[in-house]
């Protein structure tokens, strides 16, 4: 599948976006690592969907503006993004940190999406504190993100050594802006009932950053949500098990397409 990069203007913010594939629109909100690269995961999804993979502000050399203070600021930025790409009710997928943004987006604007997929999503306060990846040396951090550390090669910086270090560090600054003081939104758990869209929660069985139990809890708390475990994968499911994850998402999307239409209005 060919893919291309477009620089989409979102209210004055330039959003480099990888676009590829064909079919119903899908917006993929990336996590802390691997932003701006077209992986096997994207490729697999592109066989079934038109994939839009934007970069969060601060990634890929873009500036990190002062107005980005909380994940919900990015959620509202993505409301504008969805409007800018003129996507009609895309399927929204959030990976890890992207899952936090996607959850906030669904809390406020479920009406904008056809479905929600949360893979290893941050955002709701976990039972046990997540380990501090910022203080770790990279080899230790990799162990929390991957069941198979060799798969982490995909995330290693390309090109000249100092350039790579500086670029990764810049992207980590965008992650730090949202997660340093508190790697979750204390308000989000009680807001989950606002998510009114078919939801799939997927988790790596070997996720050492946030346990699969957290994922199961999210699926219980979001009305009508289902949960799937990808046993062999660590936290970075899209990189470790791209085919399994993409296929799980495709099955989920098929299920939504076949489901009877939901009546309008409040169902509680």
């Amino acid at each position, binding site marked *: 599948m060919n893919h291309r990069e477009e620089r989409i203007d979102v209210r004055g913010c330039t959003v480099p976006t990888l676009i590829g594939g064909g079919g119903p629109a899908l917006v993929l909100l990336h996590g802390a690592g691997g932003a701006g690269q077209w992986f096997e995961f994207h490729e697999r999804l592109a066989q079934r969907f038109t994939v839009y993979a934007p970069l969060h502000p601060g990634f890929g050399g873009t500036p990190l503006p002062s107005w980005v203070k909380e994940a919900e600021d990015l959620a509202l930025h993505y409301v504008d993004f969805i409007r800018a790409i003129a996507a009609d009710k895309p399927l929204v997928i959030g990976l890890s940190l992207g899952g936090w943004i996607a959850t906030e987006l669904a809390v406020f604007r479920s009406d904008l999406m056809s479905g929600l997929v949360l893979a290893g999503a941050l955002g709701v306060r976990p039972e046990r504190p997540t380990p501090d990846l910022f203080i770790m040396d990279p080899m230790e951090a990799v162990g929390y993100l991957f069941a198979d550390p060799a798969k982490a090669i995909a995330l290693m910086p390309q090109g000249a050594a*100092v350039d790579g270090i500086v670029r990764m*560090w810049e992207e980590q600054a965008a992650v*730090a*802006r949202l997660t340093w003081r508190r790697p979750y939104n204390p308000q989000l758990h009680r807001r989950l009932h606002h998510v009114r869209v078919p939801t799939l929660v997927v988790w790596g069985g070997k996720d050492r950053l946030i346990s699969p139990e957290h994922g199961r809890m999210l699926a219980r708390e979001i009305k009508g949500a289902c949960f799937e475990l990808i046993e062999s994968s660590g936290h970075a499911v899209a990189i470790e098990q791209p085919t399994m994850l993409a296929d799980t998402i495709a099955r989920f999307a098929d299920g939504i397409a076949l489901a009877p239409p939901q009546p309008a209005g409040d169902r509680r």
Partner: protein
Amino acid sequence: MKLFFFHLMPWPFIPDDFQKTWRSSWVVLPNSLYDPAIGHRVYGEYLDQLQFADEVGFDAVCVNEHHQNAYGTMPAPNIIAAMLAQRTKRAQIAILGNGICLRENPLRVAEEVAMIDVISGGRVISGFVRGIGCEYYSLGLDPTFSRERFFEAHDLIIKAWTEPGPFEWDGEHYRFRYVNVWPRPLQKPHPPIYCPSQGSTETIAWAAEHRYPYIMTFTPLDVLVRFYDMYRELAARKFGYEAGPELFGWTSQVYVAKDEKTALAEARPHLKYFAERCFAIPPQMLMPPGYTSAASLRRFIEARGTAGSFFDVDNLLASGETLIGTPEQVGERLVRNMGRAGAGIFMGAFQVGDMPHDKVMRNVELFADKVMPYLPGASAAPPRPEQASTGSKRMETSK
């Protein structure tokens, strides 16, 4: 040349198996290793050393702020500065510096520094720092807003010191309906502001714009000169003035003995303690993401080869450039290195690592006796505020 007596107040009992067991003496070194009974004695000795420095004629005694670590046990520098206001008579009290953006309310710094300035008779040098990267872990603060908060905190403190209160401050990071700091500092317009720094480009530009004396600690001379030249170049090109030596400081450990071999042998174990157990900070802790700009990080790595902090004792001692030797060697190298740096403020660390009290006192005494009298007299430092002139006190021999 101004002589400042630098001090870190390190914890001198980090265990011998430190390098095998812990990653750093910052942030994560367990505080169970701190013995308060020993600490009582050690703080007392450090204070005695600082007091002695005043008695033998140092121009300033220095404190600094570091949290949750064994490198320097002054999380509250103003507490020590306040003690020094009582224990010293003539030296300036250089707080290098308060982490003005590390607290919820920077006006607490304005208040405390004003108190010390008034009580000391106008002897405070008020250094402002952002706090090194480690502090952002220890204090749970977002490193990505560090610079913004620092600049706003500085502006707020200066306004609080110079404009009549109460006034309102509605800033991006700080909001106070009533800013009305009592007491007001004694010095006019306010205590001199110094800028200790690790070399971020934005800080250099800011310091040059404000003409704040700029100090890098424990940085190799050839690296330091590059950053100071940046300041000088900006001062000339952008701000229209010539930045003289009174605006730059150079820091070094100092150890004098009657012959070089003795000096090296006696100082070495304490330098090694300092380098290996105190100063070593991994890159992730020293430079958390967003702490500085990408451009500054790049310059930092290119200048030093790493984003961490490390100190190579063997190379340093082999270079023949250290201030560790006979009084003649130390005096000569000191003057030469200050010339190379273009610096007029010398900050000497006479207590290093686990150096015990009696050794420190002999070191300072010998320096005061045999080196001080032969150093150049008062340089073109910022004029001291109205108080009794201290004259050429360094020509008096120590007791």
